[in-house]
């Protein structure tokens, strides 16, 4: 035994160490490979295949059941018979086939000859034309001759070609007499079994097999795996990865495998079909999957293929819990652009759809935008492209309307006076309710009231004429149109204007009376229109509205204001611009009233009251809130969550801010004037949710202009009109533009409802509409509802007329008001028609009070100035077509006239005659017209 070589290490131990590490490395490698190949998305794809296989099997069963077995049997019998025919005639078929082959040979030859000749001819013609054009007559003549020489040959070739074609077709037909039946029947059978074959194909596609498993096996899955990452590369869009932009790649369809497949609407997620494929994803939809991708609308990390890293965002804490359990979901902390939860996905519509009042099919976004307009958010928060009006009443003359005491009590908490008010609460909120702040709040409120009383101009007011009758006032309020904007005494169809409650505890009779008579006298910019009330009517309404008191509010006393707090606040404002000593000097120079007024002006500036109200001295003040133009893409790190425990997302922050605007001050120590100052609107959860969607939609768009919805000039004009219609609440009364007149819901007799304006642009003349909007005159005197005088500017009126035209697809402005070509004959025949069809029975100039309003109709004297001549023709032809459900009966059913003796009984001619007659119709000449009619009737009587 050789002596053991002395060594520095033990060989045995080394072997063991190598073996162990080798083993560990192997296990590590295997583990690594397995780990690498076992991916979340593969599991989903396997599940999808299993689901689809199951579905295909059900489909197979269904399609098999659908096949009519009897018919199939019959067809198979027929096929057998047809086949035996073929066998019987095999010799003939063979012979015919041989002949056909020969014919085909000849056919090809003839065809080539003919085509060659044609080409030569075309070529020569080209040269001939070239030379002729260059006046090289000699050469041209040569080619001309060639052309003529070849003409005969060509004609003959064509004839030959046609002959052989016919011969070939005849032979083919001959063969078909034997074999045609077989082909036909087997085609039928194939068609019948088509669905089954398709289903079988599907099954084999989704059935797992050993081959597939091998191709999907770890280390081999680079060759041609059936489980693969699926992706959409969106050509025109890019993702912004800070400092680098990359083409948008969305891999969502790796798991959302059925997203664009019809029929998976009820499948479990992630395989469910996207809702509304005609609008989204579909190849004919405006939002094609391959052009828009997924993350353009949904947000999130398009390149990721796991549930968590794709940045799925739950819409509620319940969903978060459910996801954590089901998908092992965790909130991604460091991914800024998370997916939009489904309840806010409409926010993405605004990436491309801008400049319109509403975005089609995005109700929540639209509701959010409507609320933002209604509550005047843009008064403080600038949003580019969203210029709105001041939503609160003007305070420029407030001293003639309210007393300072009322303002003080109102500002304590506006909702205490009127629950439905949109005026938010500004003072005494959660971050300013400590005793020190309460003192300051009281001083601030008194200061604002003092400032407003001092800095507003009085207007002359007129006392109500005579004694007002409240009972009559109530009837007027409920019937002449107040309900088109206001909620009064439990009658509620609209809340465009303030609810008319508690006015007896608010304003003086002379103010209300003067306001009702002429709202623009008190505030030239008010949206409140004039209803052209008589003195008595205005007195009656004043009496009715002032009878309602808010006793609780009346019993409130204004809180005591500590003079030292006022002085203190004044100093703190003054020291902002001067040294403390000078500030004190200045303060001492002011009377207590002046101090109060000074504090008031500073509070108004601080709170930005002028965002909603016109206030003297703040005409050019800039809005005080954060600009929101790009709030939806603002970096998350720039939102101050304070100590509030909510998910770190934009939507959670915005929602919280809307629900409790001062919440983010919780636990913070701040001086009085540095505290958060957004007032409390008391939005419901639904409202706050809708506004959140809207705010999220305010984004810096990354979409190239050519992919955005760009409005053409007509659409822009329509939208301008639409905004005005919203501002003036036209749909409070009128049905137009897809919205039913809101007041209709509380009117029983449809005949009493304000008219439907669909198709108005086609119906009335532009000139008439323009002047009507400027100064309305009654068209339907029986209607108690009055079209108000809004006092539209020329531009607003023009905008509305254009809007109505566009809605009706009437665009040719210059054709307007062209008088129709009436003929004397038509006018003459129109009279008796007018009489015999008894038009005047409903279209009365001075309607009889005994008639119910459902069948009264406009005075036709107006027709010539008001109606478009072409519209009258359409209308008379069949009123139900123009306005379904109208009370106007058709007099020419199925294009037939009931009067055969006038104009040969031709309905079209008669309609024309009535129209022409209307163009000259004057009810004062009725006796003459009637007499003419009577005379005519006598002449034509049968």
């Amino acid at each position, binding site marked *: 035994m050789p002596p053991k070589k002395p060594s520095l290490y033990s060989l045995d131990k080394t072997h063991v160490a190598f073996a162990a590490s080798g083993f560990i490395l192997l296990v590590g490698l295997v583990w690594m490979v397995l780990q690498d190949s076992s991916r979340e998305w593969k599991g989903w794809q396997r599940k999808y295949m299993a689901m689809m296989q199951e579905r295909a099997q059900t489909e197979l069963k269904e399609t098999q059941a659908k096949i009519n077995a009897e018919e199939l049997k019959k067809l198979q019998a027929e096929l057998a018979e047809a086949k035996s025919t073929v066998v019987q005639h095999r010799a003939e078929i063979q012979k015919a086939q041989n002949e056909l082959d020969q014919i085909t040979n000849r056919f090809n030859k003839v065809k080539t000859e003919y085509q060659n000749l044609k080409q030569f001819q075309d070529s020569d013609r080209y040269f001939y034309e070239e030379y002729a054009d260059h006046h090289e007559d000699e050469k041209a003549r040569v080619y001309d001759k060639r052309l003529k020489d070849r003409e005969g040959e060509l004609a003959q070739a064509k004839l030959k070609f046609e002959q052989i074609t016919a011969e070939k077709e005849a032979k083919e037909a001959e063969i078909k007499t034997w074999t045609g039946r077989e082909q036909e029947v087997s085609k039928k059978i194939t068609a019948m079994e088509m669905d089954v074959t398709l289903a079988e194909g599907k099954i084999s596609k989704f059935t797992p097999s050993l081959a597939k498993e091998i191709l999907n096996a770890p280390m081999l899955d680079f060759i041609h795996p059936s489980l693969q990452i699926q992706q959409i590369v969106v050509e025109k869009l890019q993702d912004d990865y800070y400092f680098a932009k990359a083409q948008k790649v969305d891999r969502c369809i790796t798991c959302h495998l059925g997203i664009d497949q019809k029929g998976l609407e009820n499948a479990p997620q992630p395989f469910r079909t996207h809702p509304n494929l005609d609008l989204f994803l579909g190849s004919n939809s405006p939002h094609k999957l391959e052009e828009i991708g997924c993350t353009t609308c949904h947000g999130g990390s398009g390149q990721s293929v796991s549930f968590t890293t794709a940045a799925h965002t739950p819409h509620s804490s319940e969903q978060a819990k459910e996801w954590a359990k089901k998908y092992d979901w965790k909130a991604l902390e460091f991914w800024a652009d998370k997916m939009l939860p489904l309840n806010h996905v409409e926010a993405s519509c605004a990436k491309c759809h801008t400049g319109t009042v509403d975005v089609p099919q995005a109700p929540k976004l639209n509701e959010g935008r409507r609320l933002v307009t209604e509550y005047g958010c843009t008064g403080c928060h600038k949003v580019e492209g969203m210029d709105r009006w001041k939503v609160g009443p003007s305070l420029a003359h407030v001293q003639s309307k309210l007393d300072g005491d009322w303002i003080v009590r109102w500002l304590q908490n506006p909702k205490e006076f009127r629950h439905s008010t949109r005026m938010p609460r500004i003072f005494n909120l959660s971050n300013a309710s400590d005793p020190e702040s309460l003192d300051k709040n009281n001083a601030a409120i008194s200061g604002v009231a003092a400032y407003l009383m001092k800095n507003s101009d009085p207007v002359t007011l007129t006392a109500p004429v005579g004694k007002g009758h409240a009972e009559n006032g109530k009837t007027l309020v409920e019937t002449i149109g107040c309900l088109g904007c206001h909620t009064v005494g439990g009658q509620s169809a609209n809340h465009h204007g303030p609810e008319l409650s508690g006015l007896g505890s608010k304003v003086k009779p002379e103010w209300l009376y003067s306001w009702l008579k002429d709202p623009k006298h008190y505030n030239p910019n008010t949206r409140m229109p004039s209803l052209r009330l008589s003195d008595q009517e205005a007195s009656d309404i004043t009496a009715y509205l002032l009878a309602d008191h808010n006793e609780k509010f009346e019993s409130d006393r204004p809180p005591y204001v500590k003079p030292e707090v006022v002085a203190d606040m004044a100093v703190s404002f003054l020291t902002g611009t001067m040294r403390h000593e000078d500030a004190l000097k200045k303060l001492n120079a002011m009377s207590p009233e002046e101090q109060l007024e000074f504090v008031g002006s500073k509070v108004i500036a601080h709170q930005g009251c002028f965002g909603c109200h016109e206030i003297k001295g703040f005409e050019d003040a800039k809005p005080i809130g954060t600009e929101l133009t790009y709030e939806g893409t603002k970096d998350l790190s720039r939102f101050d969550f304070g100590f509030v425990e909510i998910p770190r997302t934009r939507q959670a922050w915005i929602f919280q801010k809307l629900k409790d605007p001062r919440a983010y001050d919780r636990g913070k120590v701040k001086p009085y004037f540095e505290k958060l100052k957004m007032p409390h609107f008391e939005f419901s959860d639904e409202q706050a949710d809708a506004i959140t969607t809207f705010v999220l939609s305010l984004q810096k768009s990354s979409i190239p202009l050519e992919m955005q919805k760009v409005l053409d000039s007509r659409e822009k004009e329509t939208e301008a009109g639409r905004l005005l219609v919203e501002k003036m609440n036209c749909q409070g009364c009128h049905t137009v533009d897809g919205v039913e007149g809101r007041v209709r819901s509380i009117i029983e007799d449809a005949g009493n409802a304000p008219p439907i304006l669909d198709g108005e642009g086609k119906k009335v003349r532009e000139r008439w509409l323009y002047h009507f909007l400027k100064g309305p005159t009654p068209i339907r005197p029986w209607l108690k509802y009055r079209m108000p005088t809004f006092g539209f500017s020329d531009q607003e009126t023009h905008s509305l007329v254009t809007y109505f035209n566009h809605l009706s697809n009437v665009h040719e402005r210059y054709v307007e008001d062209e008088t129709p070509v009436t003929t004397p004959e038509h006018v003459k025949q129109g009279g008796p028609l007018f009489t015999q*069809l008894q038009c005047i029975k409903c279209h009365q100039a001075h309607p009889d009070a005994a008639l119910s309003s459902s069948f009264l109709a406009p005075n036709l004297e107006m027709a010539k100035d008001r109606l478009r001549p072409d519209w009258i023709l359409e209308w008379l032809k069949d009123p139900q077509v123009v306005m*379904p459900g109208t009370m106007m009966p058709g007099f020419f059913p199925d294009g037939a006239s*009931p009067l055969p003796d006038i104009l040969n009984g031709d309905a079209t001619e008669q309609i024309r005659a009535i129209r022409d007659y209307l163009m000259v119709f004057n009810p004062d000449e009725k006796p003459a017209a009637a007499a003419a009619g009577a005379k005519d009737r006598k002449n034509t009587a049968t």
Partner: protein
Amino acid sequence: MKQSLKTFALLMTAAYALSHPAWAASVKGSVAFAGAAPAPKTVNMAADPTCAALHKTPQPDEDLVVNSNNTLKNVFVYVKTGLEGKTFPAPAEPVSFDQNGCHYVPHVVGVMVGQPFQIINSDSTLHNVHSLAKESKQFNLGMPIKGMKIKKTFEKPEIMAKVKCDVHPWMHAYVGVLSHPFYAVSGDDGSFEIKDLPPGKYTLEAWQETLGTKTVEITVPDSGDTAPVQFSFGS
């Protein structure tokens, strides 16, 4: 196609008639009104002098007409179920619907789907016939000429399609549109008769415009008539 269907239907019904001798069974009955008859209401025709001049006495409101024998007039009685799967050709002769004396005559009328519905104006004033049918296409026809006639049809069965005149708010009528001919309207003595009902089990329904509906199950035997059917409405 339509023609051949009709012919087929005719043949089938003929074959059916031959194999069933009791084809001509008729269902008779009457509609009683339980309780005291309410005081008859009248309508005010003052709105149209032409109408007012037509009548010397105030005209009764036809919403609820109780006959002198305590039965109800204008009750629409029809086979509601029991005829499923059978088709019946619509007769070519029209159902007449007259505007006479500013009333609709009759006030309640039945018509088959596709059967001509002839509307007549016998008054010398303007009437409009405004159909408020929910199943069939609505129409609103002006009829200004005395004696004029217009034919209309209804496309789908409906119990009941309301027809009204917008010019004369008191004027309204109801049309029972059916896919079979087995219906009747109770008369001045409250009686009705549904003729030629094939043997089988049926549900009969009686409809009154203010009192609602009542149903009765009946069996038409293979031979002989069915026992009289009694409907009774309470006030």
